[in-house]
């Protein structure tokens, strides 16, 4: 199974990639990253991965309760999009949300402390792993109902248009979520009213234990907007450069008033759906192959080393740095007290 269906075909020039209606637009050529971009992407993705590994560990220790959905394997998607967006562009996603928050530059301590339900958590410990928000960083959650964030994200885009602020909303959802009715209700309105919103389908091949093939009549999810005339494309979501290039194109489309855009990120989650998923619906070989051949972080690491942009030792030092940040977050998340009991009755009404 290849991670990318059609990632590098076509040219990146504007004329070639300008989409006509639902015509399947050619994915732009991968933009080559310079040294700074590669190292930035590497660090951001590594931080998400180390954070998620630590979250898995804390879950194993019983410090994180309930459901905990890890983003390991999908890091390039959110990091590539983050690198393309400008200040004020919003993100909204489902319950697999830790990576998005870290990419949106939220303090790992606040995220981890929310996972452990402590008062220093982003939602004061009252939201939990699936429900976190940051008005300041334009992160709108963190939603536990599959598909809800698609209509909500369309509303964020609607507000951008209403205020004429030039921003674009990015609504992330899974391959499983792409079968929800409200997704299509939103597609229709977004295109009808030319709402600046990017629908980012994170196709990690499974919705819990159901593969895309078993859930979707047409597995090319990038074409789900075809009947509304929304352009869409499949992107190699394991290659952060491809993600960033496609995102730039989609953002420009939205910002120029042409309405919504669909990016189907072909990606993969290494871990189970949530911590308690034994993942019996796929083979170990399938997972291993992805890890060894398409890992988003390894790809950047290799290029960095090949280009001589960092030495093994420098990357080790960087990893140590990231581990220290994550360890500090984990420490905070364990020592920070639980919310004061008086918080039970606050934040219900303003």
């Amino acid at each position, binding site marked *: 199974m290849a991670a990318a269906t059609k990632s590098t075909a076509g040219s990146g020039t504007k004329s070639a990639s300008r989409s006509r209606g639902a015509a399947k637009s050619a994915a732009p050529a991968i933009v080559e990253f310079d040294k700074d971009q590669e190292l930035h992407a590497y660090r951001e993705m590594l931080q998400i991965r180390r954070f998620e*590994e*630590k979250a*898995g*560990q804390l*879950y*194993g*220790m*019983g*410090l994180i309760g*309930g459901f905990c959905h890890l983003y390991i394997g999908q890091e390039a998607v959110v990091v590539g999009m983050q690198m393309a967006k400008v200040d004020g562009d919003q993100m909204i996603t489902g319950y697999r949300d830790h990576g998005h928050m870290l990419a949106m530059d939220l303090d790992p301590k606040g995220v981890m402390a929310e996972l*452990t*339900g402590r008062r220093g*958590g*982003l*939602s*004061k410990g*009252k*939201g939990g792993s699936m*429900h976190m*928000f*940051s*008005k300041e960083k334009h992160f*709108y*959650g*963190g939603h*536990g*109902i599959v598909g*809800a964030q698609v*209509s*909500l*994200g*369309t*509303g*964020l*885009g*609607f*507000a*951008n248009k*209403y*205020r004429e602020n030039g921003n674009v*909303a990015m609504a992330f959802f899974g391959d499983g979520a792409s079968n929800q009715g*409200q997704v299509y*209700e*939103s597609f*229709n*309105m977004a295109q009808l009213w030319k709402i600046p919103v990017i629908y980012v389908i994170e196709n990690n091949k499974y919705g819990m234990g159901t593969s895309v093939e078993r859930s979707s009549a047409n597995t090319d999810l990038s074409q789900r907007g075809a009947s509304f005339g929304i352009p869409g494309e499949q992107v190699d979501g394991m290659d952060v450069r491809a993600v960033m290039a496609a995102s730039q194109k989609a953002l420009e489309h939205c910002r120029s008033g042409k309405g919504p855009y669909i990016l189907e990120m072909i990606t993969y989650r290494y871990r189970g759906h949530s*911590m*308690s998923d*034994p993942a*019996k619906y796929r083979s170990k070989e399938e997972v291993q192959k992805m*890890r060894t051949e398409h890992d988003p972080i390894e790809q950047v690491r290799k290029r960095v080393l090949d280009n001589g942009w960092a030495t093994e030792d420098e990357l080790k030092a960087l990893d140590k740095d990231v581990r220290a940040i994550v360890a500090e977050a984990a420490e905070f998340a*364990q020592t920070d007290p*639980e919310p004061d*009991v*008086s918080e039970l*009755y606050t*934040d*219900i*009404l*303003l």
Partner: protein
Amino acid sequence: MPIDILMPALSPTMEEGKLAKWLKAEGDSVTAGDVIAEIETDKATMEVEAVEEGTIGKILVPEGTDAVKVNEKIAILLEEGEDASALDKASEAAAPAQSAPAGKENAEAETAAPLPAAPVSSEPADDPEIPDGTPMKSSTVREALRDAMAEEMRRDGDVFVMGEEVAEYQGAYKITQGLLAEFGDKRVIDTPITEHGFAGMGVGAAMAGLKPIVEFMTFNFAMQAIDQIINSAAKTLYMSGGQMGAPMVFRGPNGAAARVGAQHSQDFASWYASVPGLTVIQPYSAADAKGLLKAAIRNPNPVVFLENEILYGQTFEIPDMDDFILPIGKAKVERTGSDVTLVSWSIGMTYALKAADQLAEQGISAEVINLRTIRPLDIDTVIKSVKKTGRLVTVEEAYPMCSVSSEIAFQVQEKAFDYLDAPILRVTGKDVPMPYAANLEKLALPNVQEVIDAAKAVTYTA
């Protein structure tokens, strides 16, 4: 420092498991993500992945061991450069202090902590003073609703209205008449027939700070959107620790119209009223409609504003003044009396007031309270009246089971048990889907005689 590998919990409820198999042996090197062991729980077999890089220094729990407790040390991992001698040091070093996890013991300790008192809702404000000499004017409920929206839209550019047929058609029930002409299609938006989608879109816009008025052609169709109303609009403020909420109004006709059958005739007040985070209003008069809709639009929380189609065309006197606004959460004593309290709201008021007139002719003095807001419930006004009359009858069109009436009866027996001289009675819609046939429909709805009968029963004058 060697790292302890602990028996992991792999589900919210797991307490112990079997260490089924080691996939790595002492001396093997591992990198983060490598599967090192398999454990079995009552539910599944799961893999344990290494979180750190290193060499397996010592396996402490042999494979095949049953009932290994979560968080028990199962192996020791040596970091780069460490050899077996580090193991001894590791066993000497005190086990890392773990702050109490949110696990069992902690949870038990927590239950002992006293439950904080629910906040006593602050006394709702009284109705505004109507200055002497303020002229009254006639207004239908329909006009009052329209005027309320228009005034608030003039006042605040973030307020907009959207829904099916609200713009060019002027509203399926003509509530938004004239708004398109005044405010344009940016702020008066015809949506496709797509309740779930546009309700969610409205909530998203509200989370971004706009103040949408989402009109449902009727609340029967809001069932398509109830997930967004409850899971997104009502709960976001809490889940975000107060960072963002949904300052918006969901409004439209609710309850039975006439002869439209079961799917178009249901009162959903008790559904929404059961949800913390929502405010629920059911106006009766034109003044209620105008004053409370304006308050709802300005309220920073999601408000479910339940109108009634039969009342739309009814005319009431309302004060002709600038910015007439009513307090949310305050009931109104529409008629004072001493023998029995009738509590109602929305169209139920029409039965209650007529019944009070007829009861008066029969020498029974009924006090009639118009609740106006369902959540927060102004139970104090009801209790004050019950303490005077000792008798209570509630009147509404909704189904009886788990109704707003049930809640009122519960709270009154809880807070004024000793003042009751008779059981509380409810006059409600019958416990049946709304029939179409005219005679059956009439039977399914409450009527004035039922209210009179109930009042007589509780005053023992039947």
